[in-house]
């Protein structure tokens, strides 16, 4: 086993990475928790954000503007999934998979190759794994700003329509809400954030890669679920909406810290995705199993055993 100092040296990097993925996870939170829609577009739109940002920066575009473009590229991906689902009647999960697959080709087209690197010494990148402390600060600022904006947005009439649609679409329509429109808006917003996260992630790791989004939805879900559990443990009923978003980012940080720890314990890098899938499965299963243990036939049988005389 490597010395523990190696682990501590690696942890700040995990925090920076967690904050960037936290932005993606907040995007996932919008679809998965608020809209109740498992959106697999994410695996494609994170790569699109990365590809757009890197290619634009390499062509001399100012970095902040490139990030705005990454955001809008993600928005378009969300719009496509939303259109496939609401206007063409394709089931949500399948609509996301179709967009994701199409984006794989488009991401290659945007970059012209599978991997495009960008050097922080030549371009004024916002975040980079070469400058971890400043990346952590900037990542935290992004998370805080996004949380503030979303807190405002979901308090508006438009935000209410998305929440109502995700909770009870029959009720929403009876109250005059176009549930199709609300679904599309939520998907656009969510994938916009994912695209932005992709743009930052590509800068952080110094390249945009056509495979950078593989499994992104699982990491996003892991962050959402870990954040939910931790938030509930710490704040319980006092957890408000902005708190939930912040804890989603905290969940992403915890996820990367845990990955760092298991890597340090000797897990090989190629098995991290296997590990992620297992972690998410376990966390998704816990609420179900908990409910079942309170309400199981086995226990009923035990309680109802007829004692022999």
């Amino acid at each position, binding site marked *: 086993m490597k010395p523990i100092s190696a682990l501590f040296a690696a942890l700040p990097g995990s925090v920076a990475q967690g904050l960037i993925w936290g932005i993606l996870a907040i995007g996932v939170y919008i679809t998965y928790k608020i809209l109740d829609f498992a959106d697999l577009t994410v695996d494609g739109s994170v790569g699109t954000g990365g590809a757009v940002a890197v290619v634009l920066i390499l062509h001399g575009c100012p970095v902040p503007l490139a990030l705005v473009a990454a955001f809008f590229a993600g928005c378009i991906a969300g719009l496509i999934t939303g259109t496939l689902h609401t206007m063409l009647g394709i089931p949500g999960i399948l609509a996301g998979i179709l967009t994701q697959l199409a984006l794989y080709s488009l991401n290659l087209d945007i970059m012209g190759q599978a991997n495009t690197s960008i050097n922080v010494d030549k371009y004024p990148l916002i975040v980079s794994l070469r400058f971890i402390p400043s990346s952590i600060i900037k990542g935290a600022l992004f998370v805080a700003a996004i949380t503030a904006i979303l807190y405002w*947005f979901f*308090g*508006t*009439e*438009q*935000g*209410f*329509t998305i*929440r*109502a649609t995700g*909770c*009870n679409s*029959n*009720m*929403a*329509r*009876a*109250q*005059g*809400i*176009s*549930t199709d429109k609300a679904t599309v808006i939520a998907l656009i917003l969510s994938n916009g954030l994912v695209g932005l996260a992709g743009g930052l992630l590509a800068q952080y790791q110094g390249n945009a890669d056509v495979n950078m989004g593989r499994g992104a939805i699982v990491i996003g879900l892991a962050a959402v679920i870990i954040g939910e559990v931790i938030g509930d443990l710490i704040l319980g009923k006092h957890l408000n909406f902005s708190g939930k978003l912040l804890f989603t980012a905290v969940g992403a940080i915890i996820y990367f810290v845990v990955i760092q720890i298991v890597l340090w314990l000797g897990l090989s890098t190629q098995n991290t995705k296997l590990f992620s899938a297992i972690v998410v499965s376990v966390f998704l299963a816990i609420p179900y199993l908990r409910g079942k243990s309170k309400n199981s036939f086995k226990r009923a049988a035990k309680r109802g055993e007829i004692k022999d005389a």
Partner: protein
Amino acid sequence: MLELNDIRKTFNLGTINEKRALNGVSIKLEDGDFVTIIGGNGAGKSTMLNAIAGVWPVDSGSITINGVNVTGLPEYKRARYLGRVFQDPMTGTAATMEIQENLALAKRRGNKRMLSWGITKKEKEEYHELLKSLDLGLEDRMTSKVGLLSGGQRQALTLLMATLKKPEVLLLDEHTAALDPKTAAKVLELSDKIISEEKLTAMMVTHNMNDAIIHGNRLIMMNDGKIIYDVRGEEKKKLTVPDLLNKFEEVSGGKLDNDRMLLS
């Protein structure tokens, strides 16, 4: 004013499950009409309300509300004219949203929803007073999630939401059927109160013949996707349950097959 003109709707056309649900329904409601609707299972009572609400497009016929032909409008666009309460208390409210947020959603029925606040401070005070009038103690739980309420409380809230912005027509689809008798009576009393105070035009599907006779100024009976009996005013007031049963057998040539209706 609501007018249905020869509405027809067949479900699962051309399959073994083909069902002619509405078979030429025509009715005209005057302003302030409170119509109770009875009929056997599958008579088309709820289907007629769903046709009015625009849950799906009708096959033929026209629906006019206050002179506006709404036949081609989807459900969410028709909502501006309609208040609705459903049989299932879960259907009418958003469980994960606060009581006051649900009211705020209803307050904006038919409005364009943009980026102004989803609920304002002034509204909260207004809702507080309104909930007080319900006398269910909900005014002290305005920030509670609706999912924590009982079925009766949720139906009362849905009723309030349906009438918060005065609807041209209030559609009540067996809205007390899922409640225990005591709660059902309370919700029905509240419905009566709101309808008479606000002078609403309303349609209420019920399986309880007594309720159908006591409430409203007009009663219609449906069978096989058609209105087979339409009575109003003094004549309606004098009706008895045996009268209705006789009427049904006379018009339809069969016994009423709705057990719930016979038992209650």
